[in-house]
């Protein structure tokens, strides 16, 4: 079966509220490729700050998947970006937001497996953490 495909999209310059000046508008029709594109030329002058909160949906392990998004708070301290989940009290850090998110993702994958491995001898705090983590992460079913 052919995969589902998206080829049409809409580009909006960040920070532009309401109407966009017509000089920033461009219509591109690529009929020979079977796609139609409507786009605005990006306005790189108008930028927005990185949001401090992010819904995260990546797990760095092929045997796991995310059940529901993990809410993270992202902060920058002395050149290091920290992504922190207050619910799990877990964090990841790195030189950029993506490094911090990768670190967090690897951390929770390791945490999931270590809690699974020791599940029969966990104390109450770790058992609670395992239960919380299980709300966000689950093993990928074998196909």
């Amino acid at each position, binding site marked *: 079966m052919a995969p589902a495909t998206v080829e049409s999209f809409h580009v*909006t310059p960040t920070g532009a509220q309401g109407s966009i000046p017509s000089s920033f508008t461009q219509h591109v029709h690529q009929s020979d490729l079977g796609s139609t594109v409507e786009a605005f030329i990006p306005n790189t002058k108008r930028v927005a700050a990185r949001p401090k909160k992010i819904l995260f949906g990546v797990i760095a392990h092929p045997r796991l998947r995310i059940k529901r998004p993990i809410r993270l708070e992202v902060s920058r301290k002395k050149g290091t970006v920290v992504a922190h989940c207050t619910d799990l009290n877990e964090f990841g850090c790195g030189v950029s*937001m993506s490094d911090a998110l990768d670190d967090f993702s690897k951390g929770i994958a390791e945490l999931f497996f270590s809690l699974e491995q020791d599940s029969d001898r966990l104390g109450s705090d770790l058992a609670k953490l395992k239960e919380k983590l299980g709300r966000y992460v689950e093993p990928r079913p074998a196909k």
Partner: protein
Amino acid sequence: MPSPPIPTVLAMLLCDLVITDAESKKKTLVGVFERMYTPETPFIYPRGFSIYARLSDAEGHYTFKVETLYLEDDKIVQTSSIHEFNAPERLGVVEIVMVLPVMGFEKLGTYEFQLYANEVYIGRTTLKVMTPPQKGN
């Protein structure tokens, strides 16, 4: 109604062009790259390029969004979105092709294209904008 599952990104690439075969619907990615050379900034890249993403675990209705960030200061440069896309089958594959006709770059450095499904971060790819290498290097 339960929210749709969070898709997994199998691949996310920047390329010059994505060609779709009319009969088989297979995609050909032409000119995959991860860096761009410019003698000076700011500059506009006039040729345009495409973002190709291949996802699994998607089923139901999604709004996909790509945010372009300048990584040195975490500033969002541009947002692109696809509204109301329906993925029919979770075990199938979803391919996203976003064609960016023209893009401006204010500074040298690393730009990141972050993919979101229903406002949930699911993956990224990066682009380095740099000065051309010196001859002889």
